[in-house]
């Protein structure tokens, strides 16, 4: 458990920012100022160290009390024909409160990362997958295939913690592990082994990935191809990759859906997941979707157990009504279907609401600056910094307990949204 080592020094602090929920951070606290002193990375340092500025709620740009701001949100919801509660970068109890409010206020729920997340969910709901979790990767992976994703840019400590640990359970020499990138090349050296073995890169453009992955799956299944190259890659190179995947004892195929930014990337994710299933007819192989940032896993977990569905669900008719297309909040906002947007962004000051014609309420991390002042802005606490909480990491299995590290007095998203529900 997160423990206070000395006055103002916390160790074993879990990060709600990084998606892989590193929980070995040491953080020192002086007043309201936090510094990550051990095991930080660009993502967690930014997350923990962002300073607090304003603490007072504003309505129409004027500072006011929390109670009045809450009243104003309830008024907006009462007058609304279509409220969207999105952003939803929050923790367990923030998500619970958002679902309760959406249910009562007949709103639509969505998340700021849904565009990427649904590239995976659409596959889960259509054909399923065979996936694994981080500790299995850490102890078992012998071949890591990274598809179309620059992992270290989004998950800086993934390789250090999961691919190049000092010890593994089954006596594997970690230098024997192979890392192969298909698509994008890595932006740094995190994927290079401790003794300097570099990842192999099989380059292609994102736009060619659907075809390349289809060919790879076909080769794994022993299909004969007439083509000699695909997406600029020689078929022989893909044949070699197919053979290595078949020969591996525990290959892991990973991707960050947010980085597969091309039309209908879900179809490519599906081909990957089916390819992993195919490999499992003889050997073991697993998928590992990387995500879990900004509370996206947490919110979808809560939405699923409370309503049966992930986000992109609306409660207009008094019951949960799931539609990943119609209830895509970005589409709804772009097409002026929304009159009130409640945007929750308690982790990252740079994740601002999309521009739209809707009256906008922001429950945001202190320090946000807006091009256009929202109708209501309430600075809220950050889970795991300003208040305790719980959050899921990328694999939807492990959740971490978050501790309050400082006493900023900022309300939690749970407190604010529950208060709105009370007065609605």
């Amino acid at each position: 458990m997160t423990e206070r080592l000395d006055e103002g020094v916390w160790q074993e602090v879990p990060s709600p920012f990084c998606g892989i929920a590193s929980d070995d951070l040491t953080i020192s606290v002086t007043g309201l100022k936090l510094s990550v002193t051990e095991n930080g990375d660009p993502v967690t340092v930014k997350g923990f160290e962002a300073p607090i500025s304003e603490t007072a709620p504003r309505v129409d740009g004027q500072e006011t009390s929390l109670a009045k701001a809450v009243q104003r949100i309830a008024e907006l919801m009462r007058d609304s024909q279509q409220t969207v509660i999105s952003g939803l970068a929050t923790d367990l109890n923030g998500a619970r409160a958002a679902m309760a409010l959406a249910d009562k206020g007949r709103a639509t729920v969505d998340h700021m990362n849904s565009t990427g997340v649904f590239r995976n969910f659409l596959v889960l709901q259509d054909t399923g997958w065979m996936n694994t979790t981080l500790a299995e990767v850490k102890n078992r992976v012998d071949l890591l295939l990274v598809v179309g994703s620059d992992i270290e840019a989004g998950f800086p400590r993934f390789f250090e913690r999961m691919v190049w640990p000092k010890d593994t359970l089954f006596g594997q020499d970690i230098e024997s592990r192979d890392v192969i990138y298909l698509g994008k090349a890595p932006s740094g050296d995190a994927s290079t082994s401790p003794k300097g073995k570099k990842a192999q890169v099989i380059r292609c453009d994102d736009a060619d990935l659907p075809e390349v992955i289809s060919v790879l799956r076909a080769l794994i299944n022993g299909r004969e191809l007439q083509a000699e190259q695909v997406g600029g890659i020689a078929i022989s190179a893909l044949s070699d990759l197919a053979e290595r995947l078949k020969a591996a004892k525990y290959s892991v195929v990973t991707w960050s859906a947010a980085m597969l930014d091309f039309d209908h990337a879900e179809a490519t994710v599906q081909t990957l997941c089916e390819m992993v299933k195919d490999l499992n007819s003889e050997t073991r192989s697993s998928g590992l979707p990387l995500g879990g940032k900004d509370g996206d896993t947490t919110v979808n977990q809560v939405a699923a157990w409370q309503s049966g569905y992930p986000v992109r669900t609306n409660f207009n008719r008094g019951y949960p009504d799931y539609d990943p297309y119609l209830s895509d909040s970005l589409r709804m906002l772009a097409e002026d279907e929304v009159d009130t947007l409640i945007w929750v962004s308690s982790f990252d000051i740079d994740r601002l609401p999309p521009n739209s014609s809707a009256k906008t309420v922001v429950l945001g991390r202190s320090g946000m600056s807006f091009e256009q002042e929202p109708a209501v802005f309430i600075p809220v606490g950050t889970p795991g910094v300003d208040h305790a909480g719980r959050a899921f990491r990328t694999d939807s299995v492990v959740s971490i307990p978050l501790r309050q590290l400082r006493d900023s007095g900022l309300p939690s998203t749970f407190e604010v949204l529950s208060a709105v529900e009370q007065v609605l």
Partner: protein
Amino acid sequence: MLMKLTGGRVYDPAQSVNNEVRDIYVREGRIVKAPSDGQYDQEVDVRGKVVMAGAIDMHTHIGGGKVNIARTMLPEDHAADVVARTELMRSGCGHAAPSTLTAGYRYAEMGYTAGFEPAILPINARQAHMEMHDTPIIDKGGYVMLGSDDYLLRMMAANDDQESINNYVAWTITHSQAIGVKVVNPGGINAFKFNQRKLDLDEKNSFYGVTPREILLRLARAVKELGIPHPLHVHGCNLGVPGNMNTTLDTITGIDGLPMHMTHIQFHSYGTEGDFKFSSGAAEIAEAINRNKNITVDVGQILFGQTVTASGDSMMQHAAHSHAHPNKWVTMDIECDAGCGVLPFKYKDQSYVNALQWMIGLETFLLVDDPWRIFLTTDHPNGAPFTSYPHLIRLLMDKTFRNETLSKLHPEAQKASHLASIDREYSLYEIAIMTRAGAAKLVGLADRGHLGVGGAADITVYTDDADREKMFSSPDYVFKDGRMVVEDGDLIDVTWGTTHVVKPEYDRSIEKSLKGYFDKYLTMKMGNFKISDDEIVDDGRGSLTIQPLHKGGPI
């Protein structure tokens, strides 16, 4: 405030009360003695009605990772049973993988006041408790899964002594906030990660050299020696495989007389006789259960229709994936801890195999003599959703109805079963044992499942009706901790039940080696793995009830 339930026909097997007219008094959530002055504040007239303790589902998948995967992957199944919000209730969905809120409401509306999640992965226990926290009215708790976790298998491969294993089991149950220990396909989930595709009772894990039999013996002994009331909860080897009855019989005799609960026994009672090479082993299994008094079972009855199977048994779920209906499925390897598999499934009455599964379950119910050692489950949602319990009760209590249903099933399957010739009909008293007194005793709930003075006032009142399905679908009243939550079959109040746990003792020095293991091999710190009591209480709605241990000690 003192409330009197006047003149009900009470069925309270824990006190050997069988259809006796009695008054019951309730104060502050508890059943109390009749007041000496005869005064009370409120009376509920239940004359002529059937009064039982609230029912307890001792094995129901209501919370945790695989259940939530099932929910997320089945939007089409929810769409047929969406539930609108009311003044009292949150919206949600029902059927195979209901939302937590709807699950709680529907259990209460059927007179159930507790449900136990049988497959809590230690590493996923926090999530299971989050979901159970959002499950209204009923009490809850769970059995923590061990037996495929690398920590235990390492200990066993190193031939660590029993006391070390007991410490580890006690530590795990304490910090995952569980009330029992479950093992799923002992060692098999782990073996699947090493690409083994089946694991018989005496087959070795290819890395550790440990067999399922040894795992069962070690864990059953740990549970007994720690004084954990709920016997080791066993989902055996070879689930669903024709011929697995022999493994099951070996498992029963192989446990050396230690207490063992064999769950969803129906899925483990298959022979290989006949043209279809699939036959009923229920008679032999029931005979073995009758003979071995250390064994308890729940049935895992299947009923026809669409459902979803969610199991920790990644190995056998993967082996069954071609049966997924609709054709989508998930398996996961999880955190050097366990795994899971989720397959939607449709049981068809005109399928020989499914029809015979239905018969095997009912044969088991009817051939096991002692209702204190057999429990009514569908392994929700694996055999059928829990909302089909009233139908199942009617099948057990009404031979005519049972045989009418049977006569419509696959004709070859009918010929392969003796079910039609079994005359037994369960009595109300036996139903009360299976679903109340016996279940509470089995789980280790000292203050539930009975109507004795001091017990929790979880009470269900029914109108006696020859149509048992109708009777058990819609109680007149349900009281949860003394509060009326259901009246005339409808929910009228929403409460939040408690979480039942046990806290067996362990030697704190075990944390030294556990901490090293977490630091080296896992991806979270040992301290962050532990679920605090505060997390169960959470926003104040939850609570923890620590149930008493039995006398343990070395065997």
